[in-house]
């Protein structure tokens, strides 16, 4: 049983390898040169990431070895244990931060995608009075760096009374102008005839939106999901400003408390490395799964 599976696997591998060789043969000379030229650059770009993976599994004595090593020699999961142990001594366990992060990221990603798609649809297909003005506002808000008006936002959150709640994490992130913008560009390319036909068949606005528009802009939805996921997962602003209780803060915030002032200190290096890896893996996985759709979306989102 296992032998046959091995053979199948091997065959798969060899087929892939042949494909690869074929692909190389088909390359033009210029393409080969470009590929070779870019190889060191790609390696350079990936170097810190490779390092991130290795660093997280290094035992303490390897972390401070001189000369420093790049690849881990005796991999251990000790750093992850240290990260957990470190938080046991404090009031809030790290699992709570991870839980908060997951809840916040999940809720805000969904909220961002749903509200963004709903807003983009009438902007693209129904020229209601004031739609140009709304679109202009959203275009302008593309430039908006939330950090620049952190103070009034703080006051708004305070007066809404949603400090130290999950709402305080999620709501400020919901308005994602880039999302509306990309979706609107994408919906512009859906022919109006399609929707008129549906209307003649008796479909109501909501049905058209759910059954026709959303499936057609699926790649754009995937892209927005990734953008939303990334911005929510890495966000420290809501934790820093709007959450005073430690139990409500998220993983990236906890990471930033671990890492600040790390440059010349020995303590907690291992735990920080482990935490950094935990921070990095989810966005990477999500992106690898859906990267084809992302690139396809970008190609058709021309601002024309």
């Amino acid at each position, binding site marked *: 049983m296992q032998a046959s599976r091995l053979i199948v696997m091997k065959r798969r591998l060899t087929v892939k390898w042949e494909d690869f060789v074929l*692909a190389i043969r088909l*390359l033009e000379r210029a*393409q080969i040169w470009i*590929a070779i030229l870019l190889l060191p650059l*790609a390696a350079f770009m*990936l170097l*810190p990431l490779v*390092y*991130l993976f290795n*660093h997280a599994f290094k035992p303490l004595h390897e972390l401070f*070895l*001189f000369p*420093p090593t790049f690849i881990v020699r005796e991999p251990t999961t000790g750093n992850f244990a240290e990260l957990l142990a470190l938080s046991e001594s404090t009031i809030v366990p790290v699992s709570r931060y991870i839980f908060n992060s997951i809840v916040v990221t999940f809720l805000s990603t969904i909220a961002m995608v749903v*509200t*963004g798609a*709903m807003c983009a*649809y*009438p902007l693209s297909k129904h020229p*209601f*009075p*004031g739609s140009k003005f*709304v679109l202009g*506002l959203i275009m*302008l808000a*593309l*430039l*908006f*760096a939330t*950090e*620049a*008006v*952190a*103070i*009034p*936002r703080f006051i708004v959150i305070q007066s809404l009374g949603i400090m130290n709640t999950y709402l305080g994490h999620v*709501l400020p992130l919901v*308005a994602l*102008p880039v999302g*509306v913008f990309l979706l609107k560009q994408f919906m512009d390319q859906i022919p109006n005839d399609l929707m008129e036909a549906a209307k003649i068949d008796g479909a109501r606005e909501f049905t058209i*939106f759910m059954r026709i528009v959303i499936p057609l802009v699926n790649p754009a939805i995937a892209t927005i999901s990734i953008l939303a996921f*990334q911005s929510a997962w*890495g966000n*420290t602003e809501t934790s820093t400003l709007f959450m005073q209780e430690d139990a409500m803060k998220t993983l990236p915030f906890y990471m930033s408390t671990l*890492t*600040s002032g*790390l*440059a010349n200190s020995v303590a907690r290096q291992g735990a*920080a490395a482990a*935490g*950094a890896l935990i*921070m*990095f893996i989810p966005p*990477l996985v999500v*992106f690898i799964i859906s*990267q*084809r759709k992302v690139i396809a979306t*970008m190609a*058709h*989102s*021309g601002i024309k």
Partner: protein
Amino acid sequence: MTGNATALSEKRSSAPAVGTKPSISRRIHGLMIEMWKYRLSYAFIFPFMAMFIIFILIPVVAGVLLSFTYFNAFDFPAWRGWLNYQNLFSQDVVFLQHVLPNSFKFAVFVGPVGYLLAFLLAWLISQLPSTLRTWYALAMYAPSLSAGVAMTVVWTVMFTGDRSGYINSFLLKWGIIDKPVYLLLDQDYLLNIMIVISIWSSMGIGFLAILAGILNVDKQLYEAGKIDGISSRLQEVWYITVPMMKPQMMFAAIMAIVHTIKSGGIGVQLSGSNPTPNYAGQLLLDHIGDYGFIRFELGYASAISIFVLLLCYVLSKFFGFLFAPKEDE
């Protein structure tokens, strides 16, 4: 939108009292009917616009108002007029001597250099066959996937001040220096290190947009170009690729501006203190953080924020002027 609607209904109720301008009231009536016809559209945009107004529009407006006051987060804001702005440009030595030059240098290197690099890389990658292209694109995009916080771990260890830091270790080995340098605490190096890291992580969504834009250009155009006498690849890029993908380049430019402005905080993360040592890595956003959340001079910090927003706007207009489709094209 709600503000707009109430304003309209007020006008409508006051219009019959005046009685002399029936055309205006009729026009408003017509508009109301029109708006009622599109009530479903308003319902669709409502959730987003509500959040947009509460968390983006109101803060910006409030920020503008606060920037004219003295506000310490406890007492009621006291009106100060243009004083905050006057102080910002005449009294604030740190701002004028460190923050502005730092931000300018940072923006010039990370913005345009990162942008050109993104275009160059995207063009090179687009020349490759599709399997290879995917992997190279992933390699270039991966750094921007990592949340900033996570990466500071890697970078701080790379630039650690004793001999166990990678950079120090290599420099020692090659005999360029003879004792370790406190890279992240030294004002000569901090800003440059920040620039390197930011360029490294700047191949984000803008880069993908450019790559897709290049791939999307109709291949027939290149053939037509060849017939019309385009001889080199460079000419091809300049006369066909760039004009055809202006929308994506515009999008990438806007993203580049926002990314550059948002990169504040990286110096604080690396050196572990705000203000950064000798203000070496102090950027606009760190200055806001310093005044807003350490000294609690919120009015003054708001004035800096408004300056940042205006700067963003002017820069985007400039890029828009560069890349917007011209009338004759």
